[in-house]
Every structure is written in C-alpha cells, then in structure tokens.
C-alpha cells in the first residue's frame, strides 16, 4: 500500500509570502499601461490592501509610468524600456518606477495650486500632484541618461482603519 499512500500525500502547498519583490521590465509605450495596472493591482490585493487603496496604488503607478512614456525618451529612441519594482512587506508596499531617459529636476516642478489651476483651465501637470496625494511617500532620484527613479510608499496600516470603517 506504500504506493497508494504516496499518492495521497498532500500536494506541496507553498505558503504565500508577504515579503518579496516583484519586478517588471516592459517597453515604454502607453499600450502597456493596462498590463502594468493589472499587475500592480494584483500584487496590492495579495498584500491585503482594501479596494480603495488598491485603486490609489494603481493610479499612482499609472501616472508615474505615463510620465516615463511621455517625457523620458526622445521620440526617435528605440527599445526604450521602463521598470516597475514592487517591494512588499507586512507594513508597506513600495513602488519604484525607473527609466533610463533624459531625466528632469523634480524640484523645479511646482505643485499646482488647484484653485488657480482650475481657474486657468490648464491641461496636464496633474500627474505628480496625484502621485503625492495618493501615496504616503513620494521621492525622486534622478541621474539623467543613467537611471531616473520615483519611489512611492503606501503603508498597510490604512488597511485596519479601512477595515474598521467598512
């Protein structure tokens, strides 16, 4: 009966790890935004964020990636790519979006005064503002032509709060 016994041993269940890194490297083109959002949302869901926070993380990531796709590279550049790194641990999700394009100086980008912005009917210039509003921490590390990074953090503490509220 050892043969039968063997068969009945449980399939190995490898426990979910709530710590770990998820890396994505994809072509820097807007038709990949949907793919990225789907991926980031699933990881955020795994970690245990509530639907609201998953939506925020998804949108912040979209804005960061859209900026790479629109601003980082010259139009003529070929094989341009974009990296998304998601680090998860028990307390937080860290999202790092990296490009290898021309970079910019984030300190010279003023945060829009929303009232003035709306009064002037401006187009664009809301991406970084949204990222800062949606995430708990946002910082840039710019090395033009080498590696330009935006790092965004969302704390999972909110989970408990939102679980209580809902």
């Amino acid at each position: 009966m050892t043969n039968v016994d063997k068969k009945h041993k449980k399939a190995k269940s490898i426990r979910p790890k709530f710590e770990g890194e998820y890396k994505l490297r994809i072509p820097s083109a807007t038709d990949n935004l949907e793919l990225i959002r789907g991926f980031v949302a699933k990881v955020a869901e795994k970690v245990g964020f509530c639907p609201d926070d998953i939506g925020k993380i998804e949108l912040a990531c979209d804005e960061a990636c859209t900026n790479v796709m629109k601003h980082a590279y010259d139009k003529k550049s070929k094989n341009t790519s974009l990296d998304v790194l998601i680090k998860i641990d028990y307390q937080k999700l860290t999202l790092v979006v990296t490009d290898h394009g021309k970079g910019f100086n984030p300190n010279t980008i003023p945060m829009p005064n929303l009232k003035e912005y709306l009064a002037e009917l401006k187009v664009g210039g809301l991406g970084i503002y949204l990222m800062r509003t949606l995430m708990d921490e946002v910082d840039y590390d710019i090395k033009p032509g080498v590696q330009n990074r935006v790092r965004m953090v969302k704390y999972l503490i909110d989970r408990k709060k939102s679980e209580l509220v809902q």
Partner: protein
Amino acid sequence: MENFTVNRTDKEDISVLYIGGFLDAHTAPDLENAIQNLIDGERYKIIVNFNDLTYISSAGLGVFMGYIELIRNNDGDIKMSNMSPKIFRVFDLLGFPTLYDIVDDEIKALENFK
C-alpha cells in the same frame, strides 16, 4: 477585448457620449477625437455618460480640460453623469466638481441644459 469605447447619441441639440472601459494616456486620444468631431459639427452641448467607465487617469481628465473653454465660449458645456464612486473620487481629489457639472444621471444632465 475593447479597451475603451465611446458611442454617441444625439438628442436634439444635445449630444451624449457614452464612454466605457478605461480612459488613460493610451485611450485619451479616442475621446479627444469624439469631442473634436462634435466641435467640428458645431455641437457644443455635450453630456458624457460615465456609466461603463471603470478607470480614469489624469490623461483622461486632461481631455475635458482641453476643450471646456472653447465649448463654453460657444454657449455650450460638458456635463457629466453616471460616474461610479471610484471615478468620482479622482475628479473630486482634483477639485473638478467646482468646475464641471457632475450629476447622478443623464436625465438630470439633460434638464440642466434647459
């Protein structure tokens, strides 16, 4: 799979654009085309029905910002209806409800044009 859909129905001098799927930097040009077509036809009274829209990013919001001035200068408006709470929250975060007429449903939007 259709990523983004926009369908138009004209109700007398008002045009309704039904948008669905996701509105991001990739699909925003499709909405721009639809609005540009209305403007080319001198139809400035526009309702955007968000019922089937599941996602919007700032690139989508930018489309509305890009046309609102021209449209209002021509006695028109863009009114918005049927937003899910998720979509509304993005508009709200940026203070857009002070700038745009965002209503619960299409009937209310039609009334507001009277």
